């Protein structure tokens, strides 16, 4: 942004030059059609639609109507975009793309029947990625309506890869919720794992596999199949968001098998993560339980006391987080400050999973509605930044134009023009004479070139003379246009800031409710350890009594 602004400063003289040359037509009106079509496609694909909306009329070729509809959608004109996509679907090209866009628009509006119809059309008319997206859309719609079998049939038609894996994972979640037996869910998860392994993006594939293995481990543990659970959980990577929970469940499976020592090793590793992550507070309690079951009541007591202290500390941290949210807002506290880069580069890799604030941000983003609320604020911030840039640019133009209007002297250019015109005529006469005298072909070619250049200068001179006559009015018009735009920018900025304040209030309310839930979770964990400590003391007291009686 700064670079662009300084460029505008450097070019402010260019504004004056533009006025001298006459107000030029914008790029939008001058670009050739095939080029304009490519430029619009690139801008739409990279989210820069605002800069090319003037090129809509220049679009040509088989993609023109489709790109035009996408331009309308990107500029928020949904109704016109819908009509445009329908027109494209009734045409010959981009039928699948248009149907997919219409399906997504219908789903966003809550029209599930319409969405299903358009997804079906996209599946029939499209090819490649469009078909994959349409099938996933149909599977998700079927799942939302409780039709698991139909969803499974759509997923079975998809090609192996990330999206098919996500579809099967969602289906497994439904089976796990509805079935008493975990076998259908585990089969779905195994299919999802096979699909995810085929994903070309290795980071994305690994993240999904971690989540799938954790879910499968949890289900196997619930079915008392401890070896299977351990097998799944050991496949979760040690540098993932899912690691602490996998370590806790791994310890639990080992503990159920009677291997308390190994279980405590897993829980000890889970304890290294911030308490915000799922499974960490349970691992703290598990450590004491492990010592207790292994016959070390003294160390069990110490472990629970240490867990108590950790939970107390976390409640203080949560209290401070709540205060910060109330003072600075949730967006700054949780989102912006969590990505501060005041850390040495060699620690940067592990910071994501070791900083409590980042841990709470990750956990918070899992809450329903949190991502939408954060995205709203971020989007409004982007809008404010765009408007600020427009305002700054317009201010530079207005200053330059005002300065030029003040210094414009209508007498001077007339005399300068006359002198230059005289010079042009003299040069033309000299050149004509030389052309007659040219001896070699090289000289003739050189003189032809010069004649072309001189003729071009003459054309520009006469064009300039015509423009100079209308210059003051033209300058005033552009200045008025720029001032009107500046006023409009200010109005839009005020409106954006007001909506931003509303969106931020909603985000704050969600974040505070989340922090409150986390505080309750810590209080609950604290109650559990205190109960364990009470039981231990009771047991020790009874033991002492028994020994005394003997």
């Amino acid at each position, binding site marked *: 942004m700064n670079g662009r602004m300084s460029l*505008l400063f450097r*070019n402010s003289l*260019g504004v004056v*030059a*533009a006025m001298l*040359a*006459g107000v*030029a*037509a*914008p*790029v*939008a009106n*001058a*670009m*050739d059609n095939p*080029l304009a*079509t*490519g*430029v619009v*496609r*690139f801008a739409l*694909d*990279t989210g820069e*639609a*605002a*800069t090319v*909306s*003037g090129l809509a009329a220049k679009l040509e070729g088989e*993609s023109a109507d489709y790109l035009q509809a996408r331009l309308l959608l*990107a*500029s*928020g*004109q*949904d109704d016109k975009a819908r009509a445009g996509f329908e027109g494209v679907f009734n045409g010959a090209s981009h039928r699948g793309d248009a149907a997919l866009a219409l399906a997504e628009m219908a789903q966003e509006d809550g029209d599930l029947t319409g969405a299903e119809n358009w997804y079906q059309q996209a599946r029939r008319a499209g090819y490649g990625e469009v078909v994959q997206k349409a099938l996933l859309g149909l599977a998700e719609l079927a799942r939302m309506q409780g039709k698991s079998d139909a969803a499974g049939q759509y997923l079975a038609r998809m090609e192996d890869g990330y999206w098919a894996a996500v579809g099967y994972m969602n289906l497994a979640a439904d089976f796990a919720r509805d079935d008493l037996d975990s076998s259908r869910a585990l089969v779905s998860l195994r299919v999802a794992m096979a699909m995810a392994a085929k994903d070309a993006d290795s980071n994305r594939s690994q993240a999904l596999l971690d989540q799938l293995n954790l879910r499968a481990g949890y289900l196997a543990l619930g079915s008392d199949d401890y070896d299977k659970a351990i097998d799944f959980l050991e496949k979760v990577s040690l540098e993932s968001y899912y690691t602490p929970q996998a370590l806790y469940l791994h310890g639990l499976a080992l503990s159920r098998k009677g291997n308390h020592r190994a279980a405590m090793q897993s829980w000890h590793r889970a304890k290294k993560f911030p308490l915000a992550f799922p499974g960490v507070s349970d691992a703290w309690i598990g450590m004491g339980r492990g010592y207790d079951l292994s016959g070390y009541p003294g160390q069990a007591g110490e472990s629970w006391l240490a867990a108590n202290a950790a939970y107390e500390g976390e409640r203080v941290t949560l209290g401070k987080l709540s205060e910060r949210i109330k003072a600075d807002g949730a967006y700054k506290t949780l989102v912006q400050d969590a990505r501060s880069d005041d850390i040495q580069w060699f620690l940067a890799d592990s910071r994501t999973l070791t900083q409590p604030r980042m841990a709470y941000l990750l956990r918070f983003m899992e809450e329903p*509605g949190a991502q939408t609320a954060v995205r*709203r604020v971020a*989007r*409004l911030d982007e*809008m404010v930044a*765009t*408007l600020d840039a*427009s305002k700054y*640019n*317009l201010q530079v*133009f207005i200053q330059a134009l005002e300065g030029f209007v003040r210094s414009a002297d209508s007498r001077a250019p007339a005399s300068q023009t006359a002198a230059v015109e005289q010079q042009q005529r003299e040069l033309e006469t000299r050149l004509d004479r030389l052309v007659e005298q040219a001896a070699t072909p090289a000289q003739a070619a050189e003189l032809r070139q010069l004649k072309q*250049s001189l003729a*071009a200068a003459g054309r520009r001179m006469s064009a300039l003379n015509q423009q100079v006559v209308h210059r003051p009015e033209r300058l005033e018009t*552009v200045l008025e*246009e*720029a001032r009107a*735009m500046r006023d*409009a*920018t200010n109005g*839009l900025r005020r*409106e*954006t800031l007001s*909506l931003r304040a*509303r*969106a931020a209030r*909603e985000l704050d309310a969600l974040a505070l409710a989340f922090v409150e839930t986390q505080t309750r979770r810590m209080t609950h964990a604290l109650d559990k350890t205190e109960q364990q400590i009470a039981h231990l003391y009771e047991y020790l007291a009874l033991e002492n009594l028994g020994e005394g009686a003997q």
Partner: protein
Amino acid sequence: MAAMAATSHSSSLDEQIERLNADITRHTASVHALEQKLLHPVNTRVAVFLSLANRQALELDSVELFVNEQPVTAHLYTENERNSLGQGGVHQLFIGNLADGKHSLKAVINARAANNRFVRREIVHDFRKQPGTLRLQMTLNAKAPDYEPEVSFVEWK
């Protein structure tokens, strides 16, 4: 009931944000058009565009552009941008002003060829600027078996 009220409240906020976004997009387009009108007079304007002829042959990393030996722009391509170029997108690399006469354009292309070889090539193109807008389209191509990058230039006047 409270949850329903909260949902309708949020959706009305989303609708307002959408409407505002449409207004801001239109407004930014007008400001952009005015900028173009003022900063790049039509008679001296030069724009350089980049497109790909063959999607599979080259994975474009970056392009550096020099006009008359002066660096004017450099762009590092994202996955998204590469995909768009592969589907016929055209990237406007540079827009500026030049006086009439002879000029030289140098492009330094960094890419990975289909045979997994990293290539860095300098391409120089001399052109003559005449009154009126000049648009130079660079089209990048590489052919099997050696996948040596080739650049062709089209001048749109």
